């Protein structure tokens, strides 16, 4: 039985409440995943972190785009800052649920859920995102920035202990000149409401049109959201030709671990569509970097 649903208005208060209830309380964001599964893990006390002062909006800070833990998918989709500097995230968040879910569900919640193919998570990972973890100890608030990859322990298992810690914010460096990001996915129309394959890319080109920097995240390609480091390395210094796309796809297929998930997809099918997603995301990045397609 739920004993309390608390909606603190500062990060300090939220962290203090968690500490005070010593494991009987847990953090909740929009709750659109949590309340569906609540029968399996109903904490007696919930601390809603969607109303924390200063963490309900998207802003620029110290060269980063900073997204507070109360920010919803709808806010991200509507944000000119992210449309410009983190298009992949807009594309990913725009595909999650319908407006009713996007108006409530938070990106922080998406990350906390730790699914290996979560759309928003993949996009933030490709953007080189970080999360700010906050907790209360010794009568004080502590915060620490983690690279996003550190947040995941396994499928559905977060390294952030939601009975002790809060994902207070997320941030990434916005894409600049000759740089862009994109997200592509394939859904299955039957069965589980989860994407069967998603891929996000962030690519920077040099003045000659060669790839200067690349970051690619995909999933499900293992127990946690997957950074395709070998494919990224392969792309450096190349132009985005047909040959490059084909060869990059082969590198990508070499480094990922695709498996068959019942009622979702066969490994074989994933091998077929992953190169398609890579091609779609990279060509969109290139077009955007050339200024042809600015927003999602």
């Amino acid at each position, binding site marked *: 039985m739920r004993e309390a649903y608390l909606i603190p208005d500062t990060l300090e208060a939220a962290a203090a409440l968690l500490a005070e209830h010593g494991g009987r309380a847990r953090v909740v964001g929009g709750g659109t995943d949590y309340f569906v599964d609540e029968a399996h893990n109903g904490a007696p006390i919930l601390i809603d972190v969607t109303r924390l002062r200063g963490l309900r909006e998207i802003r620029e800070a110290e060269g980063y785009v900073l997204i507070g833990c109360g920010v919803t998918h709808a806010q991200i989709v509507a944000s000119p800052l992210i449309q410009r500097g983190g298009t992949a995230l807009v594309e990913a968040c725009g595909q999650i649920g319908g407006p009713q*879910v996007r108006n409530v569900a938070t990106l922080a919640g998406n990350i906390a859920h730790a699914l290996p193919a979560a759309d928003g998570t993949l996009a933030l990972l490709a953007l080189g995102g970080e999360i700010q973890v906050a907790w209360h100890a010794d009568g004080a608030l502590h915060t620490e920035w983690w690279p996003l990859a550190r947040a995941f322990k396994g499928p559905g298992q977060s390294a952030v202990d939601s009975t002790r810690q809060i994902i207070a914010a997320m941030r990434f460096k916005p894409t600049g000149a000759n740089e862009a990001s994109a997200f592509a996915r394939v859904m299955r129309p*039957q069965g589980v409401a989860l994407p069967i394959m998603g891929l996000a890319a962030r690519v920077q080109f040099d003045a000659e049109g060669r790839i200067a920097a690349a970051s690619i995240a995909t999933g499900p390609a293992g127990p946690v959201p997957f950074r395709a480091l070998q494919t990224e390395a392969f792309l450096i210094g190349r132009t985005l030709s047909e040959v490059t796309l084909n060869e990059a796809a082969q590198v990508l297929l070499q480094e990922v671990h695709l498996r068959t998930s019942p009622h979702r997809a066969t490994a074989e099918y994933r091998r077929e569509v992953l190169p398609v997603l890579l091609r779609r995301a990279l060509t969109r990045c290139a077009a955007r970097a050339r200024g042809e397609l600015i927003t999602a």
Partner: protein
Amino acid sequence: MAKLTLTINGEVRSAEVPPGAFLADVLRETFGLTGTKIGCNEAECGICTVLVDGVPVNSCIYPALKANGAHVQTVEGLAQNGKLHPLQQAFIDHGAVQCGFCTPGLLMTAKALLDQNPNPTEDDIKHALKDTYCRCTGYVSVINAIRDAAARLRGEPPIPPSLPHTKEPLRFVGRPLPRPDAVAKVTGAAKYTDDYVFPNMLHGATLRAGIPHARIKRIDTSKAKALPGVVAVLTHEDVPGRKNHGLVYEDWPVLCYDKVRYVGDAVAIVAAETRAIAEQALKLIEVEYEPLPVVDDPVAALAPDAPKVHEQGNLLKHIHVEKGDIDQGFAEADVIVEGEYQTATTEHAFLEPECSIGRVTEDGRIEVYVGSQIPYADRRQVANALGVPEDRVRIIGMLIGGGFGGKEDIAGQIHAALLAKATGRPVKILYRRSESLIFHPKRHAVKFKVKVGAKRDGTFTAMRIELWGDTGAYASLGDKVMTRAATHASGPYEVPHVKIDCYAVYTNNVPAGAFRGFGVTQSAFAIESAIDELAHRLGISPIEIRRKNALRVGSVTNTGAVIRESVGLLECIARVEQALQAEGTPWVFRKPDKPNKVYAWGFAAAYKNTGLGGGAPDRSEVEVEAFEDGSAEVRTSAAEIGQGLVGVLASIAAEELGVPYERVRVLLSDTDLTPDGGPTTASRQTYVTGNAARLASIKLRERLASVAAEMLDVPVDHLRFEDGYVRCNGKAVSFAEVVRQAHAEGIHTRLSHLYEAPKTQPLGTGGDMHFAFSYAAQAALVEVDLETGEVNCLKVISATDVGRAINPLALQGQIEGGIVMCLGNALTEEFIQEKGIPYTNRFARYKMPSIRHTPQIVSFIVEDPAAEGPYGAKGVGEISSIPTTPAITNAIFAATGVRVRKLPVDQDALLRAMRAQKAELAGSG
């Protein structure tokens, strides 16, 4: 408890609520705003949508306390000062309201869209309503209504509804009249079973087996009984009457006594002060099982050593259809195609989960409030289980939030009655979506072996078809469904030599029973695919091969019936063909700007019986009463499940009595007050109950005519009943005055008519197995992504022979809704079970079509009248939902060369098949 203060529809409200409460529950239970409906409790279906500070949210999982201080808008707040919001009016005008259960969610989601975007495109509408589901309309009317409302809000002239061309209307029959219940449904005033609360009411819950097959060793309810707040816990020992129920075969335990045969079997029931306590009590009931081997496949279940689901064996029914000499037929064939096909178990996904309220009256009778498709069958089954005469039970029909065949069997009716009797208090049993999914009968999964022979010119010579239908743990209507699947298995064609063997087989899966299309949806997929393959092999157009063989007047069906009239199939085929020519696209084509896509058309035809047929007496009784205020009431027990029966009956009575449509009330489904209209199944109500209403109205008119004739001093046969008056030669007297005069003379103005549809013959005896058939032809345009295997259906051209359109607006809704439901059957829907355990145990695991799947629909109505049907009408509820699936899968073949043999279409398998085919072609080239 915690304090909650919020503004609802402009009014500040406060209450103490439990900290775990969700907004939907608080709106409904604390504030009595039952216009907001709950469909799934998992943020999937969107029908609980309300606006919180202007933005739409799913109130079913929105913490109530999170809305503290917020402005909440619900459907009840849309109309202002008694004037409907333009969205509400447009939903009525466009027929975007059917069962009405999802309507509040659609309206509120649309309201949020129009608040932000006063001129949305169709894409904008589809984007905004993506996760707000409707199972009745197919969304076309919803899109049109929203565009219309947007125009009105911008101050532009309204956009009229797009209606099919139909015959010249009579006074009311043939006109697109609004539904009588539409205003209540768009304002949130319409009440469904769960919207009723009785004083002192308890809440019931049901312990489900949770395992697919086991012997019950022991049931111990003592701990549950000891839980504070629990008032009664009942098991099979507490069932005083018959231990089993069933519509045709009484094989389904009210509460299991020896075995459980599927996971949804009921083992015990609890009544408690709150739902939470009742659910908690379920966990305290101890049941010891001895697991038994599970059989989950109808073919495997027929093996001699298969585990037996029922003592008498697993074969529920073998259905045999034979015409001519099958060997001779294949000997005469120039070409033979053979194939195996398989359809999926599918779920009705009516948006209102089952709910029953049981109540004991002061004189000891039992009342059950329920939205049921067959109220009199409910009464019989409740009375039998209680061990009381049927007249001690009263079924009071509620509004029904969708049925589609899924509300024909007993759900909680008997349990609610038992608990009410045991406790002496009203008891409500509302199923959660997860419970509804694992409990109620589904569409049969059917395996087919099909062999079709034809001459070189495409003339069919022989069809040999075998079917194995998985009827699950209990018979439900499995025997009837599979009979229909078998008799329709050779399609709407004249075939000289036919042999069909069909097996309805018990397994430990969730039972299968009635579902719109009633077996014919399945067999149409198999036979229309095979015919498509044959046409391809012969190099004949898919349209031509069907035209060549189509049933026409004088044809003999596979059961030996001679078709004598009302067979509009050729006209349906011609209409679709003309429309296809007007499209001007090739059968298969590419678009330069979509290099990875291929587009193609597919074609299919279908027929579907109207009425029960097979020798079953098909009756309906309707009572009509005229009142001294000039109004009339039509009464019958027939279900309004969204299809528009109330409007059909009102327009028929208005037509015959000459009173305004608005002055005719329709009272349905109260077994104390309304005679038996028979089951709402088999597309039969417009025909059978429509005829009963027509004939009762004519009888009443004749009785009133003799009174009026004396009042006006004119001959009876010169009278005209029109506009609420009775007129003759310039003299007139109002309908109301005639009724008053009749009463003064001691003449009753209430009478009933029992209509009996034309006799039919049992299968195997020749003659008419059915008294009418409806026909349809459809073409579907698909887009296939060659890189991912993703399939979209972009357009459906449909022509449907319904005999006569009684209400073109409601008819359009039936056709669009049927097409989209059948599109789901092709592309998205599968109720997945693994060794008898449903994987699909919540809505997130069952994908029915959303508004994003809605194709453009071009619909033609063919009216080839049935002589005995009311004004020529025959059934319409199912026919449109039958040909869409094969039209889509045949289009996929045309696009890719891959023949879909298993439903639903699986993009994963399709892509791999395309790759394999390409490799094969490359290898052979």
